[in-house]
C-alpha cells in the first residue's frame, strides 16, 4: 500500500482530472469496470458552484503527438454533484478526490466548505487554472495570490488539499512553494499548456473556445522539468502528470520526485491504461505491448 496525504492507495497511478469519468464509464462498460477500476484513486472532473455548459464545439484538435482541448469544464454544478453524482459513486472501490474550481477566493471557500460534510470525499483538489477576472492571469499563476487562497480555504476543510498547479506561469516552483506556505497538503502538475490550433482553411482559430490546452506525449518532457523543479522546492508530496503513456514514463516522474503519477490523455486512447501503467511500474517498468 502507498500512503498519500493519509489516504491508503493500492498503487501509484491515479487519473488526471477531466480525463476519466467513472459514471460515464459505468454506463458504457457496465459495473464490471468498478471491479477492474484502473486507478488507485479517482479524481473527479472539475466541479464549479454553478452549472456550466462548456465551450462551443469544435472542442478538440489532434496535434503532433498530442491533443489540444477546449472543453470549458462542463458540469452540473456543486448541488447536482452532491445530490446525484456522489450517491452514484457510492460503489467506487477507491478513494474519491473531488476537483473544484472557483473564480474568487470566496467561491473556492464555498465549494470546499460544502464538501466538508460529504464523507465520501477523501481529498479535494483545487483547480487554480481559472482566469482571475481582474488580472486575466490564472488565479494560481501568482505565488502570493496562491498562498493567500490557501490561507483562506485551509481552515474551512479537514480534508487533504491538493493544489493542481498551472504550468502557464513564470515560476511554477515558486507557486508550489506559495501553496505549501498557505497550507496545501500536496501539489499536482502539470495541467495542460495553453495552445492554439488554426483551422486548415485559414479562417482563424479552430477551437470554439479560441485557445485550448495541450496534453499528451508532446508535453511529457515539460512535465518532467516542472515536476523536478517543484519537487526540489517543496516538502509536501507531488502528483506528477503530463503525457504519461507507459510505466517508463511514470517511473521518470517518480524519479523526478513525484509520489503519485496521474494518467490523462492516454486514458482517452485506452480506458484501462491506468491499470496497465501501474502493472508496468510494478513489473520493473518493462513496457507491456498495448
Amino acid at each position, binding site marked *: 500500500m502507498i500512503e498519500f496525504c493519509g489516504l491508503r492507495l493500492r498503487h501509484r497511478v491515479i487519473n488526471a482530472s*477531466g*480525463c*476519466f*469519468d467513472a459514471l*460515464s*464509464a459505468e*454506463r*458504457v*462498460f*457496465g459495473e*464490471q*469496470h468498478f471491479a*477492474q477500476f*484502473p486507478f488507485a484513486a479517482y479524481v473527479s472532473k472539475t466541479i464549479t458552484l454553478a452549472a456550466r*455548459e*462548456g465551450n462551443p*464545439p*469544435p*472542442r*478538440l484538435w*489532434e*496535434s*503532433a*503527438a*498530442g*491533443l489540444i*482541448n477546449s*472543453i470549458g469544464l*462542463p458540469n452540473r454544478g456543486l448541488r447536482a454533484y452532491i445530490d446525484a453524482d456522489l450517491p452514484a459513486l457510492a460503489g467506487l472501490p477507491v478513494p474519491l478526490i473531488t476537483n473544484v474550481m472557483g473564480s474568487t477566493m470566496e467561491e473556492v471557500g464555498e465549494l470546499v466548505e460544502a464538501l466538508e460534510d460529504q464523507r465520501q470525499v477523501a481529498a479535494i483538489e483545487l483547480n487554480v487554472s481559472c482566469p482571475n477576472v481582474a488580472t486575466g492571469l490564472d488565479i494560481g499563476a501568482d505565488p502570493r495570490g496562491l498562498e493567500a487562497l490557501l490561507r483562506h480555504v485551509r481552515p474551512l476543510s479537514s480534508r487533504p488539499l491538493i493544489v493542481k498547479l498551472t504550468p502557464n506561469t513564470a515560476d511554477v516552483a515558486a507557486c508550489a512553494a506559495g501553496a505549501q506556505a498557505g497550507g496545501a497538503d500536496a501539489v499536482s502538475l502539470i495541467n495542460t499548456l495553453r495552445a492554439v490550433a488554426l483551422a486548415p482553411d485559414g479562417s482563424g482559430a479552430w477551437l470554439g473556445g479560441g485557445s485550448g490546452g495541450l496534453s*499528451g*506525449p*508532446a508535453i511529457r518532457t515539460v512535465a518532467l522539468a516542472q515536476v523536478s523543479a517543484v519537487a526540489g522546492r517543496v516538502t509536501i508530496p507531488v502528483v506528477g502528470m503530463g503525457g504519461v503513456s507507459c510505466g517508463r514514463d511514470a517511473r521518470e516522474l517518480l524519479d523526478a520526485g513525484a509520489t503519485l503519477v496521474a494518467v490523462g*490523455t492516454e*486514458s*482517452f*486512447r*485506452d*480506458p*484501462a*491504461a491506468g*491499470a496497465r501503467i501501474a502493472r508496468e511500474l510494478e513489473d520493473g517498468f518493462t513496457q507491456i505491448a*498495448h
Partner: protein
Amino acid sequence: MTAPFGRRRIGVVTRREFGPYVVLGALDELARAQPGQFYMLATAERWGGGEGERPYLARAVSIMRTGQDGLVEFLLEDVGPGTRRLCEAAPGEELAVLGPLGHGFEAPAAGVEVLLAGGGIGIAPLVAVQERWGGQALLGFRDRAHADGAALLREPLIATDDGSAGHHGVVSELLEAELERARRPVYACGPPAMLAAVRQLARKLEVACALALEAPMACGFGACHGCVVATVDGYRRVCVDGPVFDGALLA
C-alpha cells in the same frame, strides 16, 4: 449492451475497395452490435509517428455491418493521417479497438417501412440498418468514383453532386420525392449540410428522422466531452448520448 472494458486487439481478415472507399473486415467474437454503433479504431502497429507526428488518438468509425462468426466490417475513406493508416491495414494486421460503443438506431415499429438516406462515408451504418430492417436506400455522393460505394446497399437510388452517376443533385431531393410518394420514418447519416436538409424535410413533411452524427472524439466513452452537439436540452455527447439522435431534438 456494454462494451468490454479496455482496448483490445482484433485481427483484420478482409480488405475490399469500392472506388475511393475501403471496407475492412475484422474478427471480434465479442461484437454483437446495434446498427449505428461505432468502434474507436487504431492500428496496433505504426499508429503515430507519421506525417506531422500523427495519428495519435484512435478514430471513431461506424460499424458498417456485422456478419457471421464475429465478423465486423468498417467503411473507411482516406481523409487524414488516421483514416489513411487504417485504409492501409491489410489482412493479418491487428487493430487496437474499443467498442462497440454508443447508442445506435432503434428498431422501427412492427410493420413500418423506413427510408434510408446516406451521404458519402455516411452510408456505412445504413448497410447494417438495411440488412436488419430493410428499407429503400437513397445515397448521395460527390461523383461517379465515390458512387461505387453504393454497391454496398441493395437497390439504392443514387444522386451525385456532379451528375456523373444517377440523379444530378443532392440526396435530399431524392428523399423529398420518395416522401411525397409515401411518408415514412427516415434513418440518415451523412455530412452536416445533408443532415440539416433531412431534418428540415422531415419537419416539413411531419415524418420522424433518426440521424447518426459524426464528430471528432478523443475517447468514445464519455470522458473527454469533446464531441458535443447542440440539442434542445443543451450540449450532448455524440459518443454516449448518440451517435444516433432524434432529429427533432437537435438544436
